[in-house]
């Protein structure tokens, strides 16, 4: 243990240290002036600690046999001595050093690290930390990434906060790879002049990382689970994200960064052309947004697959993202010559693995039927608990509402049978959720693509609407079309370069859920009527 402040107070101290110990250069510790010294019988009257052996002034010896450990000039012959006083050869140096404050070599810390289970460290500088410390970002500590999935996969208690950090970290890595000048072709330089200007690149790297960090700030409590039906028409979490990026609080931060950032640029890159088409993003801004929200290998997707897989404990979401990122390139699309985010041939298997990982984790985790019905029970609760049955779209109100407030309300409501939303709250708290009556399947879909809805409508008539719930997740996204740079220099479409990608099925589910006490009877009813329900729905002419 070292003395605090690097100094010893004036006084009488006992010490015993061998010369060899001095030579190690180890600093003095309290122990050096304590118990060990008493046994050796060396008395030190005045001492100041440093790393130098000649660092104390006067020493008194009460008896012979002490070992001269300081500068090596004086030693005793083993006879008794009442008092030996000696002046150490470095006294002048010692006193001078003692008068001066210790050298302070600490420099201001401008770069910071945050520990992360997926990326080991997430790096950010002081400017970026100001954004991270803002209220909208800190609020994400209280928004679960996967809503109530922890009721099925208990480990899935991670939050949007760490996901946002992960997306920022990966976005920076991808940016550095795809803008490395030895990886950019002349054709791309011509189409994207920004990529050749170092000052602009510095600005856009900052925009990209901040857009990545802020891309989820608009999420409502329990993320996607509570979004459907609980916002006014025309609103979604992306629009709320946009409002927050434009808010006075965030504008103040953007304007004080080095360099100052334009909120419009952050919005365009964070949300992409799908949600910010009105801002008319340029080719370059579109590519930057692809780095975050791109369908094929956006870092949002890369991070959530890895992170959700880690926390749920399922292995499906894992793939070699390091390899993938190292092989990303901006390439001219073979069909049109337009620049787009693509991959070298060597990374194609990693891209395939990512897209299969997505397919598997969707079917195993995100679209797990019990997870889906908990989302519905949560929505049922919120519809009666929220004022006017809707979330507010005011930024101030949004920032005040997190999973914590909703969870508290659910727990209270579950205990009180006369409180608003008691039935739904109770089903969540007591795990008394609705059960699957019918699930979409290829055979019925081929007969009638509306089969699940028809079953729901018929069951609703038979067993009453309060006992039935319908859930639909339609297939989304397109075929996976990105350019691939082959080892011979040709650029091919991904779906021409990879047979695997073509075999990737679209993900879609539909469930009809029923109250547990009605399920047995309903299953028997469905067995009898299933065919007629599905066939009947086909007879329509329009």
């Amino acid at each position, binding site marked *: 243990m070292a003395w605090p402040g690097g100094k010893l107070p004036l006084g009488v101290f006992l010490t015993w240290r061998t010369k060899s110990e001095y030579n190690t250069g180890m600093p003095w510790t309290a122990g050096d002036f304590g118990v060990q010294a008493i046994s050796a019988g060396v008395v030190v009257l005045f001492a100041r600690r440093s790393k130098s052996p000649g660092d104390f002034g006067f020493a008194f010896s009460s008896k012979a046999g002490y070992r001269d450990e300081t500068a090596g000039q004086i030693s005793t012959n083993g006879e008794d001595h009442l008092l030996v006083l000696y002046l150490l050869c470095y006294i002048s140096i010692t006193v001078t050093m003692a008068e001066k404050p210790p050298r302070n070599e600490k420099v201001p810390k401008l770069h910071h690290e945050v520990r992360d289970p997926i990326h080991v460290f997430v790096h950010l500088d002081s400017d970026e930390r100001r954004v991270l410390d803002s209220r909208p970002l800190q609020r994400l500590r209280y928004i679960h990434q996967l809503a109530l999935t922890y009721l099925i996969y208990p480990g899935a208690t991670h939050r949007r906060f760490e996901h946002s950090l992960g997306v920022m970290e990966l976005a920076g890595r991808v940016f550095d790879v795809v803008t490395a000048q030895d990886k950019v072709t002349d054709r791309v330089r011509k189409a994207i002049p920004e990529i050749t200007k170092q000052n602009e690149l510095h600005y856009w790297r900052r925009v990209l990382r901040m857009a990545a960090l802020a891309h989820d700030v608009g999420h409502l409590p329990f993320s996607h689970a509570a979004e459907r039906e609980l916002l006014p028409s025309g609103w979604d979490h992306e629009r709320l994200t946009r409002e927050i990026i434009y808010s006075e609080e965030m504008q103040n931060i953007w304007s004080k960064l080095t360099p100052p950032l334009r909120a419009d640029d952050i919005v365009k890159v964070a949300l992409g052309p799908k949600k910010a088409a009105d801002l008319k993003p340029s080719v370059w801004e579109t590519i930057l947004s692809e780095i975050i929200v791109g369908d094929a290998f956006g870092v949002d997707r890369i991070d959530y697959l890895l992170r959700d897989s880690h926390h749920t404990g399922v292995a499906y979401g894992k793939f070699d993202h390091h390899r993938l990122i190292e092989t990303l390139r901006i390439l001219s*699309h073979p*069909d*049109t010559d337009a620049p787009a985010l693509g991959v070298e041939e060597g990374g194609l298997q990693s891209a395939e693995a990512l897209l299969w990982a997505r397919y598997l984790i969707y079917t195993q985790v995100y679209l797990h039927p019990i997870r889906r019905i908990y989302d519905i029970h949560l929505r049922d609760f919120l519809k009666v608990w929220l004022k006017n049955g809707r979330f507010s779209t005011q930024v101030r109100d949004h920032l005040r509402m997190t999973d914590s407030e909703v969870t508290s309300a659910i727990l209270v409501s579950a205990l009180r049978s006369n409180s608003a939303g008691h039935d739904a709250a109770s089903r969540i708290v007591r795990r008394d959720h609705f059960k699957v009556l019918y699930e979409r399947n290829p055979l019925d879909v081929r007969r009638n*693509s509306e089969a699940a809805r028809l079953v729901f409508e018929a069951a609703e008539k038979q067993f009453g609407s309060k006992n039935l719930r319908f859930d639909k997740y339609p297939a*989304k996204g*397109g*075929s996976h079309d990105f350019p691939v740079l082959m080892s011979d220099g040709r650029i091919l479409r991904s779906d021409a370069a990879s047979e695997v990608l073509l075999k990737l099925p679209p993900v879609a589910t539909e469930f009809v859920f029923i109250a547990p006490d009605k399920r047995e009877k309903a299953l028997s009813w469905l067995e009898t009527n299933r065919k007629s329900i599905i066939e009947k729905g086909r007879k*329509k*002419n*329009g």
Partner: protein
Amino acid sequence: MDRLQRRALLSGLADSLRQKGSWCGETHLQKATYFLQKLKKVPAGFDFFLYKHGPFSFDLRDELTAMRSDGLLDLRAQWPYGPSLIPTEESAELREQYSRTMQKYKKQLQFVADQLRNRNVSELEKLATALYLTMEESQRSVSQRAKRLHALKPHVTVDDAAKAVQEIDEIVKVSKAS
């Protein structure tokens, strides 16, 4: 137009395009639907905006994928270009169910298929972008629109852009006359 009517229409469009020799990939259907909505005023209800390869609709992309998932379109690989979207027997049945809708828009489908026939993706990108600019800035000259197209799509030369704008002016004229 409800969802099933819209699906019948899209599968009819894919069918017409294929009959005219189109590759009928996702991009072909995107651009053809854009022409159908903007030029022929068929109320399919998709939101288009200017994207990487010209006018594009995320809603339409999702709908085409959902149609694949529901067995109405098949994705078939064809070297060396991207896959084609082939209408299935189930989609033919759907068109039969919605025969009145199909009859109502038959001419419009035919017109678009005739104009776009076997054009490749690069040509479709230029033409559809030229149409987008013409719809937004119809009072501007060919050269002004060509320069604007080049500014938006730097990989398209001004000359190629001008040709695309001229061709669109011609198609618009024929469309109005038909």
